[in-house]
């Protein structure tokens, strides 16, 4: 059996710290705890980190800090992390207009589950979600916490153009498009909230760890 957490090299400029091999709230919390620990106590030579569901990617500059040093510092951070208090989560409400041209797949998602569109909306607005990671495209947020009754496979053929702000479902995940990109998620609605504005000091509205609720409106 693999024992976690484990630190594995990713080439000669990164390590990945794996906390498990599942999509679970518990693992996401550990990834974010280590990320917060490294933000509070930076390791010299570490350039940036990418949190994801069950792993934290730690990118370093080997010319500034050799692999051995970074690895040892990561082990120390893991040892410290257990006792560290988690930072306060940011809580955001995202207003969503469901259906119509903003959510062209709402009817199909409802039909495939034997629900009405209103029931899909009720089930989508009920939970609180946690942003597990951003990836795939700039600002695209993967959210944990979808009602299992809403799980729907991706489109067989991705759309060449998904407008920014679209809310989609793929498998047992829900996600938010921050920029216009191609995409294969089932689109059920769209927010008017600007999720990306390059002119802002913090251009992306969502980040890993945020707690999100969708509200109809």
């Amino acid at each position, binding site marked *: 059996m693999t024992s976690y957490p484990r630190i594995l090299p990713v080439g000669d400029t990164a390590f990945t710290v794996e906390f498990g091999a599942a999509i679970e709230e518990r693992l996401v919390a550990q990834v974010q705890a280590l990320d917060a620990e490294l933000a509070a106590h930076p390791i010299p030579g570490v350039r940036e980190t990418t949190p994801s569901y069950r792993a934290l990617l730690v990118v370093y500059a080997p010319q500034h800090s*050799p692999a051995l040093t970074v690895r040892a510092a990561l082990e120390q951070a893991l040892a410290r992390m257990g006792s560290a208090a988690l930072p306060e989560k940011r809580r955001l409400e995202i207003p969503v207009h469901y259906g119509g041209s903003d959510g062209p797949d709402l009817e199909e998602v409802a039909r495939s589950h034997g629900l009405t569109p209103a029931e899909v909306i009720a089930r989508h607005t009920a939970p609180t979600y946690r942003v597990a990671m951003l990836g795939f495209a700039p600002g695209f947020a993967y959210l944990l916490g979808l009602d299992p009754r809403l799980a729907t496979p991706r489109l067989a053929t991705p759309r060449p153009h998904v407008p920014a702000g679209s809310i989609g479902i793929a498998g047992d995940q829900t996600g938010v498009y921050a920029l216009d990109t191609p995409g294969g998620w089932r689109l059920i609605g769209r927010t008017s909230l600007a999720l990306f504005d*390059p002119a802002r000091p913090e251009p992306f509205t969502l980040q890993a760890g945020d707690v999100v609720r969708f509200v109809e409106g």
Partner: protein
Amino acid sequence: MGEGIMRGTTKAMGALEILEAGLLTTVQDAGRCGWLRYGVPPSGPLDAVAFQAANTLVGNPPQAAGLEITWSGPTLRITRDALVAVCGADFELWAGRLPVPTWHSVALRAGQVLRFGARRSGARAYLAVDGGVALPPYLGSQATYLPGGFGGLEGRALRAGDRLPLSPGQRDPFAAAGKPWPASSRPPYSPHPTLRVILGPQAEAFTAEGLATFLNAAYTLTPASNRMGARLQGPAIAHAGAADIISDGVIAGCVQVPADGQPIILLADHQTTGGYPKIAAVLQADLPLVAQLLPGDQVRFQAVALPLSPRTC
């Protein structure tokens, strides 16, 4: 008087005018740092060694913005006296009617035309101009990210008629011209390089035979390759189980193997997270060799160990 000052300033800063763009010419600097967690890749030059050499030859800091030139080169006019250098792929290069060498600093007079001719080898060349290209940064960088449509000039490849503003350059470009970049400091480019890799982080997602295939077979670059990834074709690499993992963070150099068993080396415009198992990652020092591959060129992979024991000087 005010007009005189304006004219003086314009002359000192100058611009690079694109007369012909070439197949795919983009503005790149050292790339974006700190945005991986938001899904924004680093972008920047695929061959960082050639890019930095060009900048160093013209007296720029290594991260100054210049041009990445792919497969076929542009024709450009410079509006001020300038020191330029072209490094990376080997092109015929003309300053006006005069042939000039790559991997050298070359002085150009205001109004002179720099023209790329036939490409002799390699895929990507880098043009640096003293002072550097001076476009407004986007998320802290001028690097062009085509899939996102941002960075560089309007987030796109350059076209004939474009005009790139430059920062002020050398006081006397002619005094600094004619310097070569030593051949011994250039990457060992080859149409059939051996790329050093560190296995993992998902080497265990492959069978022993799959790993042996990866390390023993030759893989050919396909035309589907771009700045996001070098797509290779060769003997299929066998997965031990499912060909997907829970998506996690990736960097340039990661070798992903999707269900078809054909490896993809991620490059500077890569998506920041990926759901295919990563059999290995190419050493940073060997990525310039990938940048210079042409479709049909063949690579092999050689596993090396990460230096995890203390080094003694």
